[in-house]
């Protein structure tokens, strides 16, 4: 077990073959951590909300990086703090920035003010400034308190952002009876059209989406979110907490489902149909799943028995492990940057005993795993991608880059792309087969020839 890869003693418990790895601990200093900070988590969670001003209160770098979330660029406002504000206080600048941002974007419905390490450390009362600005501008000015050093990973940023949404936006509209046939989706970010696939499936069940947090969230539709009949939790890490709170506050029941993979998608749709008490309407589900399987068949043949290592942000581990199982691939490692106990429990259920699970793996551990076991595919984020490529190992970015993976069609997309990736010629070209030594001797011979000529025998061998 310990021999799988070399682990530092402090990290030993984070790799488990049968049980659950230790998790939600601080990262060891000095490693090449794959984790990010609280601001990153908060942006990940709510960057896609359209009709609000996103204002980063901190030095310019935090704003610069915050513009890009899941490979999309967003307009970001910032206070770009300089030395003067760090020393003498940044409150005035924040007040001015909020006012100016709103006058430059007058149709905004709210302002989200993200805090950063620098602001956390100089101890600015951002909440009071936001309250004041809110009163004078007449629209919500919401602090999202996410200094980078808070928590142990970006996970806490997700929580803080979700709390801000719940506190200031969700269910703020007029009370009313539940809207028939309506649902919210929590923890769905609409990567490459995933949400459209899901919506399409829900529409066939006769359901409407009021609000998807945060792939399709606006101030307006979040205000109506309390009138949904059901909350569908897609990403557990970002959605579960919100669902629990909405159940407490508005009495909306929730279901944790996954739309990745055929079996999961079918089960999700059936569970939702059962909730709305019309099992008859889900009759097509099995048929659709089977049709998708047929379409994916040519790819599945190419993937049978291939070995895949998974390394995600947090909670897709279990459902994706199942989806890769449906592709006929063997999951040889499953890990996450900041998964919690529940995430690992769920994935252990999916994986069974014997598959190593790793928590907060840093670059060196992943590298060593790839080097020793050479899986046929690594699935992870951009930071792991180029390391895998350097080792000549195919890599799939998830959240994906090219087409939707959710739903039945998404599964076919995924099968096709994974098959193309794994079978691509480039991975066979990595090893040239040339001997360095041979080449060097050749060059030396040539240099000798150039310098003083060589005999006929030698020349013919060149």
């Amino acid at each position, binding site marked *: 077990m310990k021999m799988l890869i070399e682990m*530092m003693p402090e990290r030993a418990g984070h790799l488990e073959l049968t049980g659950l790895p230790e998790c939600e601990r*601080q*990262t*060891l*200093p*000095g*490693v*090449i*951590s794959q*984790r*990010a*900070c*609280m601001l*990153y988590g908060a942006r990940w969670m709510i960057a*896609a909300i*359209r009709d609000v001003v996103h*204002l980063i209160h901190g*030095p*310019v*770098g*935090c*704003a*610069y*990086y915050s513009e*890009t979330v899941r490979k999309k660029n967003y*307009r*970001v*406002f910032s*206070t770009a703090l300089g*030395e003067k504000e*760090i020393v003498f206080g940044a409150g005035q*600048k924040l007040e*001015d*920035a909020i006012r*100016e941002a709103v006058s*430059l974007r*007058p*149709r905004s419905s709210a302002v989200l003010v993200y805090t950063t*390490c*620098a602001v956390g*450390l100089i101890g600015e009362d951002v909440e009071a400034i936001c309250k004041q600005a809110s009163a004078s501008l007449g629209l919500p000015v919401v602090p999202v308190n996410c*200094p*980078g*050093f*808070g928590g142990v*990973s*970006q996970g806490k940023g997700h929580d803080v952002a979700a709390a801000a949404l719940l506190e200031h936006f969700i269910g703020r509209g007029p009370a009313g009876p539940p809207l028939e046939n309506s649902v919210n989706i929590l923890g769905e970010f609409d990567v490459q059209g995933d949400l459209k696939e899901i919506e399409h499936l829900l529409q066939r069940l006769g359901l409407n989406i009021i609000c998807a947090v945060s792939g399709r969230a606006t101030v307006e539709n979040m205000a109506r979110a309390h009138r949904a009949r059901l909350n569908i939790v897609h990403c557990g890490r970002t959605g579960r907490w919100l669902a629990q709170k909405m159940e407490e506050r508005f009495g909306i029941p929730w279901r944790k489902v996954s739309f990745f993979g055929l079996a999961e998608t079918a089960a999700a749709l059936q569970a939702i149909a059962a909730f709305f008490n019309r099992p008859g309407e889900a009759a097509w589900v099995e048929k659709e799943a089977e049709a998708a399987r047929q379409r994916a068949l040519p790819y599945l043949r190419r993937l049978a028995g291939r070995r895949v290592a998974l390394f995600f942000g947090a909670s897709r581990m279990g459902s994706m492990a199942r989806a890769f199982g449906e592709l006929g691939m063997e999951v040889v490692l499953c890990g996450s940057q900041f998964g919690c106990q529940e995430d690992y429990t769920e994935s252990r259920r999916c994986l069974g005993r014997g598959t190593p699970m790793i928590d907060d793996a840093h670059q*060196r551990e992943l*590298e060593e795993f790839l*080097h020793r076991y050479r899986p046929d595919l690594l699935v992870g984020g*951009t*930071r792991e*991608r*180029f390391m895998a*490529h*350097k*080792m*000549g190992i195919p890599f799939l970015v998830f959240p994906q880059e090219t087409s939707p993976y959710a739903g039945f069609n998404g599964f076919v997309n995924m099968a096709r792309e994974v098959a193309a990736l794994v079978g691509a010629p480039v991975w066979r070209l*990595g*090893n040239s087969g040339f001997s360095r030594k041979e080449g060097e001797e050749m060059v030396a011979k040539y240099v000798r020839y150039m310098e003083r000529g060589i005999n006929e025998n030698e020349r013919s061998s060149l």
Partner: protein
Amino acid sequence: MQLKEIPVTGIPYDQIKIEKVPAAPEYCERPAELIPSANRAVVINPNRTCMPLGAMWAVLGVRKAIPFVQGAQGCTTYVRYTFCRIFKEPAVIATASFHEDAAVFGGRRNLVEGIRNLVVRYWPELVGVVTTCSSEIIGDDMVSFIKMARANLRKEIGPEKADQIPIVLVNTPSFAGSHVEGYDRASRAFVETLATTKGEPNGKVNIIPGLFYPGDIREIKHLLRHMGVEAIVLFDISDTLDAPLEPPTSVPYYPPGGTAVGEIRDMANSLATFALQPHAGQAGARYLERKYGVRAVVGPPPVGVQGTDAFLKALREITGKPIPESLLQERGRLVDSLADTLHHTMMKKVAVMGDPDIVLGVTRFVLEMGMEPVALAGGTASKTFVHDVEAILAEAGYEGEPPLIINGGDLFEFEEYLKKQPRLDLIIGNSRAVDISRELQVPLVRVGFPIYDRFGYQKRPIVGYRGGEMLLAEIVNSMLDYQYPDDRTQQL
């Protein structure tokens, strides 16, 4: 300038910038007084990032060196993302992982344990400690922390091994400047820490390239090779951030290349130091000049005919070596290309944005093409930028409408200004200008940091005569693609 909604699928304006498309009902006119960035507190889409990135860039150019970032995890992760996207390379950067306890008690434990963990896991040949706003605001005494880390390391792995790994400290409080200054500070920190003794003259020249890409550094080396000049390139990312795919035989993986520590030590003995980007690298060159009398040649960036001429002339003067026929031919080919494409480039209205040195280099080059600059936006505020731009315009004898010069500022100002212009043919700048270019429906030629939305620019030079030809071709072809979108017969 007429603005239209763009029917390009996959560009999510409708989701993210509803207010910018005038065709949409949501569009509104901005209050004019809030357009210049000097008039407002809020910064919108800055064209610069924070200091640590520049320092990390620099450290990655040293052989088997790993940056160690004394800050929260995001300070590392975001930069690794950025480098991964630009270079398509694994960017190995260690983090001190500041959490709440570090924010309260300081980062001593993080540094001392972190350096130890990094060394025993990776065995780097150098560690570059990069500070962040957190550690600077907390007031971490980095010099004594590094001494403690060194003592701890000696205890753990033995003094011989421990003392072989230099630890270079680069102070980069993010709020005090941009990535350009981060690189500048790193250039000084490295020579100050490592080049500590003057020895025998080595007959070489030092090159501090600044934030140029691997392709540019290769082109500089090409010029040096043809001049027959040996050089020490400080922060040589040409191999470390553009490495071949050859499955390694052991872990941890290190890319080939990079400036060796021994070479940096030797920099005090060189003939001169060329800081090719005055804003990124000058500090190191000036330090060597003051301390060891190594002459500093600061700029101009070797972009275009005159930029490259200036570089080669200075090389000739310092080394006494003539400019060889081969390079004169390259020069001639570039000038020939300028003549051959002049009817496409002359009188074209161009806007340039990016880091100040890139803007200066490119502006000089576009003036050589007979283009007319409309707006020149340097993302990092600089004391010399406005003066330098004016000098370049005067040198070229430019008599058109004076361009808007943005010194620092942000892209919102740049964009709003361009929207008001009667005509614009081209934007030259980094990937951050892509939205502006799409909305104004003018082509974007990508140069400088960062380029994350296209492949290959990090490998293709813009410096030197051959780089000039490539950039010229890119400029001409981009404009033609836009002018004749359904072009089947057009001939140059």
